[in-house]
């Protein structure tokens, strides 16, 4: 156990195996059937989609919330978060970051992020470029920027359709069984 109150890596593996055996995870289709609602609340889902789409336009429609949620349900998520060595389990990191966005949005605009117009969202998300943001209670802003931008890039540009869209040969040795 690394952080009190959160499942250890071994416990997470057990939960994943149990979920698979119980039919909670059914792979083999185009994308994992696990939906964002099973990991995030509706508000978190909306906030994640809004932040990601502000950072990388088109990533929400590409399914960034389902992507992050599906990865967080795996014992070893294929997210760029695994590269950053931040001392917090990934799910906790995301939930804290998303809650902090809404807090910031309330402080700046009086409403949650997902209730703002796209141009207003940009004003909130741009704050990530600043190392010290008044009222920000989440993980370091630079880290949040990197992680959420990377997720949005993965969802939109890390899949084969993006290469087709940009007219670049994908040239797979072995195509992945599904986009993520």
């Amino acid at each position, binding site marked *: *156990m*690394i952080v009190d109150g959160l499942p*250890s*890596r*071994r416990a997470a*593996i057990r939960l994943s195996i149990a979920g698979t055996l119980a039919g909670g995870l059914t792979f083999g289709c185009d994308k994992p059937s696990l939906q964002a609602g099973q990991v995030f609340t509706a508000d978190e889902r909306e906030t994640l989609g809004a932040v990601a789409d*502000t*950072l*990388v*336009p*088109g990533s929400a429609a590409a399914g960034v919330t389902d992507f992050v949620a599906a990865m967080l349900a795996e014992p*070893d998520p*294929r*997210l*760029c978060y*695994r*590269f*950053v*060595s931040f*001392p917090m389990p990934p799910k906790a990191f995301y939930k804290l970051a998303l809650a902090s966005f809404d807090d910031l949005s309330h402080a700046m605009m009086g409403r949650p992020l997902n209730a703002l117009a796209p141009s207003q969202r*940009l004003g909130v*998300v741009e704050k990530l*470029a600043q190392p010290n943001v008044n009222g920000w209670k989440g993980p370091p802003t630079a880290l949040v920027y*990197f992680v959420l*931008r*990377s997720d949005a*890039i*993965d969802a939109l*540009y*890390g*899949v084969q359709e*993006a*290469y087709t869209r*940009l*007219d*670049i*040969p*994908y*040239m*797979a*040795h*072995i*195509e*992945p*069984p599904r*986009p*993520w």
Partner: protein
Amino acid sequence: MTEMAEADVVIVGSGATGSLLAARLGTAGRKVVVLEGGPPRKLDQMYSSTIWSRDLKWAGPPARVAGANPVTFPFEAGWGQGGSALHHYACWFRLHEEDFKFATVHGTGFDWPIEYRDLQPYYDALQKEVGLSGDKDQEIWRPPGEPYPMPPQPVFRQAQLLAEGFARQGLKTAPLPMAINSVPYKGRPACLQDGWCDAGCPTGALANPIVIFGETMKKAGVETRYNAFVSRILTMSSGRRAKSVEYFEADGTKKTIDAKLVILAAFAVQTPRILLNSANDRHPRGLANSSGRVGRYFTPHAAVNLYGMFAEETENHMGRTGGQLMCQDDYSPGPEQGFVGGYTWRIGAALKLADLGGLANARVDLFGERLKTFMEKASKHLATMSALITNQPSFENAITLTSEKDDNGIPLARLTNTLGADAKKAAQGAIKQGLTIFKTAGANEAWAAPLRTEHMMGGTMMGEDPAQSVTDGYGRTHDVENLFISGPGLMPTVGAVNPTFTASALAARTADHIVDNWAAFAAN
């Protein structure tokens, strides 16, 4: 629960050097057991996807990072059979002769306990065994040795453009030596030039431990135990000899295996972590740590990526992730520059859209519509090269244990790294030169990404003096006579080249030494 077993040799880690040693020692008749912390890997599961490729990256206990230039340990390290060599870029350079005499030449850092001439026969033999492509004659900076067994790889437009820029600056370029087939070699096909190296190469064109050593290990009867995460090396009561290796299976079951000889080949972080966690009455500061040097002088390279946008298309999706051409004209500048350190240019890396090294991170500052516009342009017109920069060893840069523990109760590692002043000065010189090269090559715009680190070396360095180093020149620990260390952690200085070729050559030399002296090392 403890299950007793016995082997002649237990090797911890199945990466580049662990697999090499297992193949060599197994072929020599030794009963070899490899303990691999991660899962087995299959070539047909190496999917061409920047997302799926992350399965090959470190997924073991986390490490904490500290210092002004924290390392990206989980990206550098591997997880499972083949270790980091399963996703490495196969840039197989030799260290230069002066790298082995760094202190003598530069008046700082360390000399190695061996010289280039000690390692040259192993470089030469390995490049035939593994299969290297390159051009010795064009690679004018390379120290003495046999020609490469394969011709160089093809060169695509971005590297051609940049080579013109180098030439206009009076700088020489040459094919980058790679452990990737340019032609069919030893039953393995030639590279398809599709830039998926980082996702693992399922064709076997890129030399990874599975395709190079897997069959030999199998024929030699080497047993590999997967999901076997090593926690400690246990010693005889005298403390002078290793007795057994303790490890945990995936379900938390603790086991031990006796061995006549133990080799730690668990990469630059886990090897010192295991040694420090193996402290006992005879080795209160950690096993093989009478010098206090276990974990110390952890020495990543400094590195910087440069990018430029050209009017014409650059074919940046073609080639290999490690690059196409190289330049070492500033590998070891003279004292007139006022600081110690040089660099190697690796020119024309194949780029994918996403992931740490992808197109989108060529401008990490961009988001929104500006990022979208950039991606559309960069996917056809971007070119890149990177400088790999010498970094000097520092006692303060270290792998230490934290008070936090993993699921098995083993303290987590903390990796502290701050790049030296000389490395930063060398990086500034490289950036200035590189931007000029892009300009003279015809780029419309050029820029440098933030300074970063690359590779992980040191932490269990070899040396002649037991008071100042962890192992001798063969990787045998000074303190425990039947305990060896293998991998880039042995390197006292790191030069300005990717370390896998040197780590492998050192391992081949260690293997010969163990085979030749087996009776002495295995005696109780």
